[in-house]
């Protein structure tokens, strides 16, 4: 996942569609995010490239909407409903995910296992 600024990035992504769960007033997705361009990327335990300031899934609540949809801890979120998540602040990402008006969020996520799977399939 390392990339050079200004250079295109190729990533294998999976679509994840999460239907938010209504809990009283709140709509919840059931996962937590870390990272963002305003955060210290070196502390991200999930990134391969420690300069990656992307948004990562840090926790997924058991049985929650995110887990049901197949989101996994350590996934890097590339897009939320078509919005780029690779160059946003933590708070922007959070706001983007928690829009009250949206009951469904569609994520593009990437993870290493996906990358490897595709690489292998391309090699073979």
């Amino acid at each position: 996942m390392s990339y050079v600024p200004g250079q295109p990035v190729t990533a294998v992504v999976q679509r994840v569609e999460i239907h938010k769960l209504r809990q009283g007033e709140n709509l919840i997705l059931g996962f937590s995010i870390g990272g963002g361009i305003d955060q210290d990327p070196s502390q991200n335990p999930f990134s391969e490239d420690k300069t990656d300031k992307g948004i990562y899934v840090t926790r997924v609540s058991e049985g929650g909407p995110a887990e049901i949809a197949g989101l996994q801890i350590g996934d890097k979120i590339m897009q939320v409903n078509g919005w780029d998540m690779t160059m946003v602040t933590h708070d922007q990402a959070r706001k983007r995910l928690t829009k009250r008006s949206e009951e469904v969020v569609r994520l593009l996520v990437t993870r290493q296992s996906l990358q490897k799977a595709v690489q292998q399939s391309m090699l073979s």
Partner: protein
Amino acid sequence: MPECRHGFGDAGALVMEDCSVRSAATILASVREQEARFELLTRALEQERRHVALQLERAQQPGAGGGQSLPMAWQQLVLQEQSPGSQASLATMPEAPEVLEETVTVEEDPGTPTSHVSIVTSEDGTTRRTETKVTKTVKTVTTRTLRQVPVGPDGLPLLDGGPPLGPFTDGPLDRHFLLRGGGPAATLSRTCLGGGGGFPDEPRDVPGYGSLSRGLGVRPPRGGPPGPGPGDGCFTLPSRREAFPVGPGPEPGPPASRSQPERFQAEPYGLEDDARSLAADEEGAPELEPDYCTAARRRPDCGRGLRSRAYEDVVDDGGELMEERPPFPATAAPLAQPERGSLGSLERVVRRSPSADSARKEPRWRDPELPEVLAMLRHPVDPVKANAAAYLQHLCFENEAVKRRVRQLRGLPLLVALLDHPRAEVRRRACGALRNLSYGRDADNKAAIRDCGGVPALVRLLRAARDSEVRELVTGTLWNLSSYEPLKMVIIDHGLQTLTHEVIVPNSGWEPEPNEDSKPRDAEWTTVFKNTSGCLRNVSSDGAEARRRLRECEGLVDALLHALQSAVGRKDTDNKSVENCVCIVRNLSYHVHKEVPGAERYQEAEPGPPGGSGSAQRRSREDAGCFGGKKAKEEWFHQGKRDGEMDQNSDTLDLPKRTEAAKGFELLYQPEVVRLYLSLLTESRNFNTLEAAAGALQNLSAGNWVWATYIRAAVRKERGLPVLVELLQSETDKVVRAVAIALRNLSLDRRNKDLIGSYAMAELVRNVRSAQAPARPGVRLEEDTVVAVLNTIHEIVSDSLDNARSLLQARGVPALVALGASSQSVREAKAASHVLQTVWSYKELRSALQKDGWSKARFQSAAANARGPKAAPSPGGLDDSTLPLVEKSLDGEKPGGRDMIPMEALGPDGYSTMDRRERRPRGSDPAGETSEKEPLKPDPSRKAPPPGPSRPAVRLVDAVGDARPQPVDSWV
């Protein structure tokens, strides 16, 4: 302030490269998409075609050089079409200044402009490529548009304004036409040339469609008098013109040398691409809000901006530049040296990807060497200068090595000199290059810019420039420069007045003489304002003299506070401009009680011992006239005395009456500002703003002068204490810290102390507990914060039995003991033990403590432990930070010169805050450049040990280890 890269078009190139990977389905999808977009362009295309036809009809000028140049023009057009790939890559050259500005806001690190091509794995196991960048497809489309302008399906240019071509003439077809060479080419080129003389205005009638006319205008008229006209636009298509891959057939063109001058008439690079991105936006994501997505952030702005600018270019600059361009081969620009006499492209410049290079085996133009680019800055031809500067800006983007070389090759004085160039375009480009060159950790470039008079030149340019883009560039550059310590005073000397009066005051909405009838104006958060406030934010941390200059700069404080007021009024408190403004006023509030003129008149006598009752605050010695007479003040103190007996609801505060409205720096410490800061603390979600607002209250409540007394009371009266207590739960470490210290200062007021003791204790203890055993991994508070919280607890339990009881009730003792025993930090352990000692000192509590199973030894061993092996001997055995606040501040004053570097002297738990960057020891900061970073970024330097023997070396190690902010983690 980050740098700006020209453009973001890499994706397109990559896609072209990787065509082989794409599945047929994807190609189909992409073709459909393009088809749709093409529709958008068709209308404009048609208009252009009419224009061309018109030109052709009237182009009956068989000029002397006409025959010679005709094939050339054709060649240019056709060749462009042949390399959509390289065009797309060249599109990275276009300037997209807005992008960079926005990056600034987000964080001053430029971040990484990325574009993403992703492979989507669908559930059925097939993979396909998609792209997160909407721009790519659009780019391709426009390429095609160009392609189709000159060539009809029959290989002839369409001159009759007939229906647009079928949209998908493809590369091979064009190549085919190229091979055919002559006939249509001649016609077409005559078309282009004809426009030069005859119909200057036509292309302007095509709004937003400058690209095509420029494309056609690529050729300047030759042999005839150059004049304004469609040819104007020829500057705008450098990339296209650079992109000359070798055609598969014989070259119909004239000798390569002849084409050179044109290659580098290049001007605003690739405007089309931005315009196209706009179109992409319109279709792509309907709910784009400019703030949130990088793509959105870039495009609407730069699309619009560039489009309009492109337009202007045609009208003004382009025309001028054109006229001045000396006749043809004489001034072959040095940039475009053909290699082996063949045609090439500049793509390597843009995309250094080796794979891309090797994939395209064609020979290409040699990239100009850096010395050549710099030499071109002195080129007699202005467009060459402008282009060289623009190219330099591009080269310097995130490339420290190039920046260094530019300095070593003495490029900075050249660029600075160009800031005073008569041509706007040259000034703008030079400033753009300087902005990138001034960005980065490397302070040498900043110093070099200073050494050649860069700051005054930039300020001059700011005064002269009306164009907001130039103003953004200038203020952005100044922002970059302002992060370099030695430059701060230079900027103040040369720029403070101009920045204040040209930018801050007009944008803040503040009017020196408000019109009674009209509503107060709101602040405008322009980029220029953001940059300027960022610059002033940096310079405001330069010490007492800088603060004095800023405070006394007429209108500055008034305007900043007005802007903040307006932000609160509009509930728009999260943006960067607000953050910058709060940080400035916070910095300016630092040490007001010592630094403002006449401050000594308001000094209070030495306050009583820490925690002394409010009534112990003796009256100030001076006359009370300035704030409403002795009576008012006496009343107020009686009030303060009575406060103890009154319940909070009837807590009132008689603020001193002024004979005239406060203005200038006086506004900083008027009790009225409390409401402003509390509003920010309530409203804002930007934790830098929160920290700064809490820090401002902390600064204002610190001093031992009457205004601090008023401020402390005003916070209570405005119901500020609950607001602050709530922020103790903030997930952001530094907010907790600022709030904790503010509470500590506020508790100098006896009534506040009682209230804080009863209401804040639980939260404070909770922080202690989470320091000892974080609720979640990674949320442990920083050492500074823990110490600040502990010191606040110490302050409020000192001299207050009730508060000590509250601590016991909040089960603070076990938390403190556990922290003291387990903490890796000497300071934390020490601070905890001091609190415990204080608690133990209340004989009334001992029985209760013993009943809970605590023994004296426990309390003392904790203390002893803290002083034990971990702690280096420190004078007095106490951590400075546990000393009473006010005395401590006086301590800070005693050693000569300490006042000049307040934060270093006071250390992180000092009782006033400044921007953290202030804490960095001058000149010895290996990291440098911290001011360009957001405060929340890891900033190891700020933990540099303050001078003084009482700081054990061990702590330094601890501190460095802890220096990073904890990662934020949010449930969604």
